[in-house]
């Protein structure tokens, strides 16, 4: 072949360098690697079977990628278009994804069900008018919680929850704690280890612990948040009449399985001395009277969830949190001033899903961990006072402990 292939030296060096740079496949800077597993909330628990992994992935897609449109049943009034748009990366939400519930001012049920209650669908398809809170109706705003490790919390037995409850504060620590007792909605069947009283069952999910299990929460979320009907909840939020299912039962089961098998957040720096000291102080000043470190699961057909100890820092009970946190609205048997202890695991990763800021407590009003603690009242007043009385260094250690959860 007659070639006149003469590339000047400098040029060939440039090209060689360029190619070498590009061929560094696998190098982090070139092909970004996964963040540390402990630094992200999404992902399945270990030891799922292939079939379980496949179902997890189907649920993952339905939860994060299935965006509803007018054509697939969105609304016509709604709060958001997909689960994932409120639960980004399975983490906590933001004021933009915060929803409003209204119409129930005591334990005797919602008086505004015929006027759009309990949930405000504050957005609407073009041509429709979103709901407004009827004048005088009590309401509250709720910021999305993280979704991690919920499968474990679902499996805590009623007996264990009752054992943590101390309705009359028999131990005199100022902390009582009660479950939210409600009748089961018709499409739910009771868990084997449920301990009903007068046909009232312990509910545990949601900020007022008003949802029985993850199926209950998921069906409600499709219906109330996205305006999507199912065989479980066929009532259209706009027209108030029953219509065809807009999401299939199998998709709902996949999403529930996905939520059940999301991994648990792990402590990221447990051996640090300051963290260890913070944890000791956290227990000493009574935070763990409500934010219980360790719970255990009962039987589950999923081996990865069965009879496991886990560390969510919650007791799944309702507590009187004082006047400051009383919005005048409630659900089930909870009082307006009662809130379910939120799990603290994953707390330090909140900013990664809240747009770089903290929006803590039920409505996101606390912009830092410290202000969330300081806003505790009621049953938590005593431990808050003890927190305030700590030295700055001790407070810092508690924060270090919480931030690595």
């Amino acid at each position, binding site marked *: 072949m007659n070639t006149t292939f003469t590339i000047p030296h400098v040029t060939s060096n440039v090209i060689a360098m360029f190619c070498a740079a590009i061929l560094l496949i696998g190098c982090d800077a*070139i092909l970004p690697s996964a963040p540390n597993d402990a630094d992200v909330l999404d992902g399945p628990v270990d030891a799922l079977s292939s079939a379980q992994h496949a179902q997890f992935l189907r649920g993952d897609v339905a939860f994060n990628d299935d965006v509803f449109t007018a054509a697939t049943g969105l609304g016509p009034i709604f709060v958001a278009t997909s689960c994932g748009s409120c639960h980004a990366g399975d983490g906590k939400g933001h004021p933009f994804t915060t929803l409003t519930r209204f119409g129930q001012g005591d334990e005797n049920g919602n008086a505004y069900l015929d006027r759009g209650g309990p949930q405000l669908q504050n957005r609407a398809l073009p041509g429709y008018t979103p709901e407004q809170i009827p004048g005088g109706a009590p309401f509250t705003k709720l910021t999305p919680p993280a979704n991690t490790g919920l499968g474990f919390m679902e499996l805590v037995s009623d007996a264990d929850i009752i054992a943590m409850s101390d309705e009359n504060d028999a131990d005199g620590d100022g902390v009582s704690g009660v479950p939210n007792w409600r009748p089961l909605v018709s499409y739910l069947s009771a868990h084997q280890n449920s301990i009903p009283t007068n046909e009232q069952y312990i509910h545990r999910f949601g900020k007022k612990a008003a949802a029985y299990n993850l199926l209950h929460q998921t069906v409600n979320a499709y219906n109330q948040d996205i305006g999507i009907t199912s065989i479980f909840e066929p009532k259209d939020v706009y027209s108030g009449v029953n219509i065809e299912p807009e999401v299939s039962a199998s998709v709902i089961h996949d999403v529930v399985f996905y939520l059940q098998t999301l991994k648990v957040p792990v402590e990221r720096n447990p051996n640090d001395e300051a963290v260890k000291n913070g944890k000791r102080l956290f227990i000493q000043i009574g935070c763990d009277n409500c934010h219980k470190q360790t719970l255990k699961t009962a039987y589950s057909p999923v081996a990865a969830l069965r009879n496991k100890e886990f560390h969510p820092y919650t007791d799944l009970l309702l507590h009187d949190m004082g006047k400051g946190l009383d919005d005048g609205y409630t659900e089930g048997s909870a009082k307006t001033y009662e809130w379910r202890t939120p799990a603290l695991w994953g707390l330090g990763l909140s900013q990664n899903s809240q747009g770089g800021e903290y929006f803590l407590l039920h409505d996101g009003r606390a912009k830092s961990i410290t202000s969330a603690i300081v806003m505790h009242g009621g049953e938590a007043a005593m431990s808050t006072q003890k927190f305030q009385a700590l030295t700055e260094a001790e407070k810092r250690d508690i924060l270090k402990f919480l931030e690595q959860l």
Partner: protein
Amino acid sequence: MSKCKILTIVCLCNAIVFMQWPNATAAGAADFTQANSTRSDSTRSDSTQANSMQTDSAQIFKRIPVDTAPDKLNMDAVYNRPFLTAGVLPVAIGGYVEANTNYRQTNGISEGTSFQARRFTLFVSSTIASRIKLLTELEFEDGTREINLEFAAVDFEFHPLLNLRGGILMNPIGAFNQNHDGPKWDFIDRPLSATTLLPATLSNVGFGLHGKHYQHNWVLGYEAYLTNGFDDKIISNTLNRTSLPEGKMNPARFEENASGLPMYTAKFAVRHRQIGELGLSVMSGVYNKWKSDGIVLDKKRSVTALALDFNTTMLSGDLYITGEVAKIFIDVPDTYSQTFGSEQLGGFVDIIGTVFKGSIFDWENARLNLGVRLEYVDYNQGTFNETNGNIADDLWSIMPTFAFRPTATTVLRLNYRYQHQRDLLGNPPAKTGAIQFGISTYF
């Protein structure tokens, strides 16, 4: 209309075209296809070479090369392509093909390596009669997953300043939409602002005028068309963001206009032979089905896109810079979700330098180019009602390229992309790295 009638009309049309044949000349076809590359300096087509490559078949086919005169505008790009014509036939054909490898990894997750047949495009041009020309562009994307008639328009030339165009035409918004042929670019991926903000390739059925005026070193050009427009998928789609590309998905738009109101697109471009080209364009229309069966369902909601494009060549043709910025305004109902933004902004700039030109193997005018593309897109400009904080939903990307052009109309490209993309709330970005190798050539 019955099938029979349609057939008769088709036959008649054919007959008319056939009757025109003897009158039309190959030169006419050549005229018509006077190709220019807006990237004339950079793609640097080399007609001698293109011709010599065709010598074997030149007995039957003649290659009409790309016109490299520096007075062509982006808006000429559809015609400014290499074509093949046979004897005295007034029909010229051409096309290009693109294929590449793709390896992409986002936050440590990759779907592995894929081989992609992104595009196979055929052009047919024909001089129907003196001053009447037709050009069609048929594109097969990803094999035959998508088949689009991107261009099928007839031009009537009354005066250089006054041409009537009708049919399926490419809306002259920005520069890339009309000047998108793979072999002209040193990058495998199309610019994000041109494909995910402005929806290249955007073609619609319509009519309008275009023309040009030459004076000394200056060329001025304009285009103004009325076409069908977008539909409400712009704000009702599974991407969960405002998207013009989603609003053009419905193939029925070549037959029915969603809003019933014409969308207008207008472009004004100016080029100085030594300095470069600057284009200003606007596209605006109503996108929603505001009325059905005579009943008003909603107010008329508009979408408007503004674009600024430019390109210039320096260092006697060894440095080429081109870019485009687009701003989009969409009337989104206040009571809908802020997930769907009412303003978008994005753009890209390509900087390409030739590091070697000369003879490589048998290619006498080969070039080795190094370059980079910088891109930014904000799919949702604005602030949250709830917090007044910035709505993110944005990305930036930097993409170096190494391109080998054995001839001006053929390119082998090696690209690397590094990209950060943030969600609506501005959470830590999805980081993507991608490596691609591909070929693209006119034929």
